[in-house]
């Protein structure tokens, strides 16, 4: 009885983990490969003549960039004017970098956008560790529920008491 109970629990856990793994991997594959890339340095170039274009209301860079935690945003100023971006100060001909180490979605004040704001979206990277974590978090409770369900749906048969020894 004890062994059968243990087998039922372990079996249910494995089924739960398998279902979670299938659902998680299907969802991961549908998101594309970029979501699992390692941290990298992403360059944002402020082109020459940016100040003039911005004062005419034109945009010189594409807004709303998506980053992964651990990425570094390097802003290269090729314009003849000094530019600022949030905490960064970027004189002409230089670059400055911002480490993106927290999950956040925010708009920094900046001098190279007509709106004077530039949006950043920093997300958690979907690494193998994240995926395994997700599978365990979903699979273990599901396995536990399956084992409870199985005990209700298919109860263990009562064993006949052993005949009394004469």
């Amino acid at each position: 009885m004890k062994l059968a109970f243990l087998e039922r629990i372990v079996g249910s856990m494995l089924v739960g983990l398998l279902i979670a793994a299938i659902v998680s991997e299907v969802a991961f594959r549908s998101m594309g490969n970029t979501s699992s890339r390692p941290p990298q340095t992403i360059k944002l170039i402020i082109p020459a003549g940016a100040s003039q274009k911005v004062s005419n209301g034109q945009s010189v860079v594409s807004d709303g960039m998506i980053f992964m935690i651990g990425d570094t945003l390097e802003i290269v100023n090729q314009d003849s004017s000094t530019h600022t971006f949030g905490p960064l100060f970027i004189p002409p001909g230089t670059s400055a970098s911002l480490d993106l180490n927290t999950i956040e979605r925010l708009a920094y004040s900046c001098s190279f956008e007509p709106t004077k704001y530039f949006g950043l979206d920093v997300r958690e990277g979907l690494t193998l560790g994240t995926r395994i974590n997700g599978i365990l978090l979903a699979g273990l409770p599901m396995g536990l529920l399956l084992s409870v369900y199985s005990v209700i749906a298919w109860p263990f048969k009562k064993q006949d008491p052993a005949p009394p020894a004469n």
Partner: protein
Amino acid sequence: MNRKNIVIALLSIVLLSAATFLFLKTEGSNKPKFNGSLIEPPVPAADFTLTDQDGQSSRLSDLRGKYLLIFFGFTSCTDECPATMAILSQVRKGLGENADQTQIVFISTDPARDTPSAVKTFINRFDPTSIGFTGSIADLQPVWMEYGVMVLDGGETHSVRVYIVDPDGNWRLTYAPASDPQELIDDMELLLKGY
């Protein structure tokens, strides 16, 4: 190949992998990491001529030979400006005997109220060795622009950036805001070591 040789080969591979990993990790960490935002490559800081706290006309380039800790603010400010000046003062104290290789420079964003004597009183509250600059709005506006400082009506500024200019007159680091004196002290010690 007997079993003993296989074990020795596997152990060698493991040790070699560990040594390679440690070498790569150490090599990557040789470059010091600054707390402030590094300006690369260092470029000459915008020079200017303004009136100092003694009413004398003075140029920023006259201060070459020291690391300059530059901050923009206004003397009637009650929060960010005195807080930042206090932090810069702590940085100099924290540098000990290297403090004389640094110079705090305060530049006004409120020319209407910040007379040289008002600037002198203000900077003396934090570090009497500091230099304070003020001037007419026509003199100050190009400086604000060069340093990316936004000045609102009445001299109020939301720019809390601190700039470090090296002894050769180059912009090296910025902080926005400078909230932890130890971060600046650590960076200054790296700069003083020649990084």
